[in-house]
């Protein structure tokens, strides 16, 4: 099916239409109207549809910034959290910055209920939250990913009492990963923006009924994948930071390189974003996305942003050149006031843009007294840019290679993630990427369509689905928090193979349940197996498995 990808960015809304064969049929760029994001989507969509010949049905892929903006700007429904922390770190020390009401009850690390909730206490906490102005609620327990029964019971108490919260988010639904404070923040934000996403979904559905040519809608996620519209209303928090993810997806879609390990460098006017692809897949953040100062459990791509770009400020310091992190405005060649790295490239004939003589004049002015000629300054700027970029790339890899690991084998034989090629995006990439790649000793590739890559990325994105499966054979339980599943199992029948198979089957069934027909391969991405020993006898096994649909992007030409 043909796909329209729309990415609502900070400045522009990019849209792209790609054919069944992955050929770009149309691209549109319109300015984003921040007061009416929907209008921006509609305009882009209509322009694309107008250019779209024939009766072919289309799927719409949307990267929405509504929840992201609401979080950053402190908007959305007033929300509060009822937390079930049990003993541990003092909840006050987390300093959440939003209302959290703490109630009794505790689940331990094995998922055993050590003490129950008190329904009266939960109810009075929820009432208090309501009276304090909250209209959306999150209920979050420590270790609820191991046992969701306290969260479910608390929700039932609130609902039966007739409190009309517009949304009740339960912590365990959002992630199978550990991290009580992150779960609290994720659930809180999710509750806060759910109303916004629901409203947005309603408009999109109307848009679909007006344009029957749109056969389906998928929403982009922070991990570069997509999810269904209905799912996005339950877990709107997953949509945050999908813009940057779209740009990396675009590079996966457009790259011709066959190396499994690459570094993706997106050079913009103000910043350069560095992302890492290892083993053919983008590397994700260790803990989860960070947004508006909140640490979340949202699976997000790992990108490092540095203050270096084509429009960076050039300062002369000790007869050397320092670039950024400030942006000075457009290049002198385009009528700007000051010489920028772009001007250095234009002046030296490395790029053709605007008026070269203006670039040279600006460089001459800057060079005065410190450099013998504008040529030597321009050369120094280019060198400084490349050096800074290479240093940043190196630091990214050093950081990733020093991520703590917990097994002897990972210390002794760490996975090889070092890049074998550099993939460049963005307008200045053509100048700087070949030079940087030469310094890194790597082959390189500059991707086409740098002007509207995010639209292509949105169009090329594929669904992602991932589940965490926790099996505890001593307690004869299998738990999949994201599905709210707690299932009795027979210990004697359950081994590691069985656990693996269960993980794959549940992931596949879940994906199919979401209407994903073209399910790509299900893979096990994390796996742990431990004995449970009591008094020198093994009494059970614990398996922690994470299974996912292999992420990736459609190839685009």
């Amino acid at each position, binding site marked *: 099916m043909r796909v329209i990808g729309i990415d609502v960015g900070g400045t522009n809304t990019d849209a792209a239409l790609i054919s069944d064969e992955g050929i770009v049929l149309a691209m549109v760029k319109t300015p984003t109207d921040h007061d009416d994001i929907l209008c921006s989507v509609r305009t882009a969509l209509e322009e694309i549809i107008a250019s779209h010949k024939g009766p072919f049905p289309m799927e719409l892929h949307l990267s929405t910034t509504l929840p992201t903006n609401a979080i950053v700007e402190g908007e959305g429904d007033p929300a509060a959290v009822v937390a079930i*922390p*049990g*003993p*541990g*770190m*003092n*909840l*006050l*020390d*987390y*300093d959440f910055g939003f209302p959290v009401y703490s109630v009794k009850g*505790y689940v*331990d*690390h*094995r998922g*055993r209920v*050590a*003490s129950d909730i008190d329904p009266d206490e939960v109810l009075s906490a929820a009432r208090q939250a309501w009276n304090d102005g909250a209209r959306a609620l999150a209920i979050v327990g*420590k*270790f609820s990913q191991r046992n969701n029964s306290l969260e479910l019971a608390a929700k039932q108490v609130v609902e039966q009492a007739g409190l009309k919260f517009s949304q009740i988010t339960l912590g365990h639904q959002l992630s199978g*990963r*550990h*991290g*009580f*404070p*992150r779960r609290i923040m994720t659930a809180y934000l999710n509750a806060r923006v759910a109303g916004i996403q629901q409203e947005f979904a309603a408009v999109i559905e109307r848009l679909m009924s007006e344009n029957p040519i749109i056969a389906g809608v998928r929403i982009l996620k922070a991990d570069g994948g997509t999810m269904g519209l209905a799912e996005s209303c339950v877990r709107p928090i997953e949509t945050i930071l999908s813009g940057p993810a779209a740009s990396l997806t675009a590079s996966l879609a457009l790259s011709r390189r066959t190396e499994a390990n690459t570094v993706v460098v997106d050079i913009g006017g103000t910043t350069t974003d560095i992302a890492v692809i290892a083993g053919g897949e983008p590397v994700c953040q260790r*803990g989860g996305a960070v947004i508006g*100062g909140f*640490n979340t459990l949202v699976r997000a791509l790992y990108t490092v942003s540095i203050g270096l770009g084509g429009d960076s400020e050039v300062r002369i310091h000790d007869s050397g050149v320092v670039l950024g992190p400030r942006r000075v405005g457009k290049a002198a060649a385009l009528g700007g006031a000051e010489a920028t790295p772009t001007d250095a490239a234009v002046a030296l004939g490395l790029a053709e843009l605007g008026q070269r003589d203006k670039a040279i004049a600006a460089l001459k002015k800057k060079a005065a007294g410190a450099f013998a000629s504008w040529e030597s300054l321009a050369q120094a700027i280019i060198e400084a840019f490349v050096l800074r970029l290479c240093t940043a790339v190196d630091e990214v890899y050093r950081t990733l290679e*020093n*991520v*703590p*690991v*917990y*097994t*002897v*084998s990972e*210390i*002794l034989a760490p996975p090889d993630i070092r890049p074998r090629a550099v993939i460049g995006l963005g307008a200045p990439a053509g100048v700087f990427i070949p030079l940087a790649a030469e310094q890194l000793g790597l082959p390189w590739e500059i991707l086409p369509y740098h002007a509207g890559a995010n639209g292509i990325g949105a169009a090329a994105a594929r669904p992602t689905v991932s589940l965490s499966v926790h099996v505890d054979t001593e307690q004869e339980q299998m738990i999949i928090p994201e599905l709210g599943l707690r299932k009795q199992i027979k210990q004697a029948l359950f081994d590691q193979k069985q656990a693996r198979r269960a993980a794959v089957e549940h992931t596949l069934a879940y994906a199919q349940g979401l209407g994903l027909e073209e399910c790509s391969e299900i893979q096990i991405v994390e796996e*742990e197996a*431990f*004995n*449970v*020993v009591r*008094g*020198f*006898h*093994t009494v059970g096994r*614990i398996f922690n498995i994470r299974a996912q649909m292999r992420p990736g992007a459609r190839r685009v030409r």
Partner: protein
Amino acid sequence: MAKAKRSVGLIFFPAFDWCITPDHPEREERLLYTRDQIMEEGLLDIAGIYEYRPYVAEDKPIQRVHICVPSVARRVSEPHRIAVGGSMLAADLVLDNKVDCAFALLRPPGHHANRVVHGARGFCTVNNEAIMVEHMRRRLGPSIRVAIVDTDAHHADGTQDIFYNDPGILHISLHQDGRTLYPGTGFVTERGGPAAYGNTINVPLPPGTGDEGILYVMENLVMPILEEWKPDYIINAAGQDNHYSDPLTNMNFSAGGYARLTEMLRPDIVVLEGGYSIEGALPYVNVGIILALAGLDCSSLREPDWKPDCLRQPQHVMPIVKNVVSEVRRQWETRHQVKREDVFGRGTNYVRDRSIFYDTDQIVEKQHERIKLCNDCSGWREIYSQAAGGRIGHTQVAIVTVPWLACRNCRREAVEAYERLQTLGRFDQVFYQDCERDEYLCAPDHHEPGAL
């Protein structure tokens, strides 16, 4: 977001793929539940708590402490090298002022490993703290004063052995009375060698001692001694088997008690030792230690099965604890009045003959140790060590060690002894260890079969 009042470097290395045997207390999942608890509490997201990845230690730092027979390569596996590297990294982080304090939360443990290593004893092969301390001394010079406070329920006999005659180290071990628990040592009479008499302090506690007793020892003995001795660095060898739920010991300490102990001690570096209540104690004790190091509130930290009864000591415990404390205090206060010859005799050497059992590897070692009684330095040392059993067959080695700040005579005598011992033909190998010059020799050198 939460913010630490003191910054903490955490070297967490649970070695999920290492065990002594799959059902041994020192097995893969020992720190699994601790990992779950640390992650769930979100401790790694706290501003000021930083996690680091350990490195693999090379031979040299290990040789600064141990004589591994026949070689470091043969005795020390990769997991041990990572635990050693992690401990050294903890010290480096503090020495380089990258953090205010550090916690090497890692395994395998080390405090039962003696200077001479024929195999593993008490689940330990090499001594993480001792190697770390020697590494610190290598960086800062021999004048630094380091206090090691070992709060494992088992006597830290290995650490005691290594620093027994070392005037730069104060070693305090709190443990369950050796008459009731492995390794059966650690009595108040073990007070240090001729050059460091009084610097080894043992506080054997009766079974059943809980928060009240241990915190009494901290307040009335450990803290005053530290205040007087003024160490440059305080290291806590943090075994967690004083916990009321530990399967191998009989003590009554709680996670809250461990946190309180850490708050009082304010150690610069904490190194994990034993503790085998892996579900009921370790997750909570370790979270408590990290929170206490970071200066965060520990008052809501409690084991799920905690009841006030858990902490109640048997009635007879407190009087015994108080007796031990007053006896050890008396010893401490009068340590300079003791005449050396009253303890070590009037000869020119201090001689010690011991039989050492390696319970983990089923080896028996017979050791004859002779330390020169020298007025100018802490004296060179000669050890004859004969070991048999386990999978090592039979071996007989001689060892010569030269202390930090050795006098010229002692170094000369040690060098001569090293030459002479090689000519005797009685020994499979002769070792020479000179910390100050960082020189470690062995004749004949051990080569792995197949190696050049």
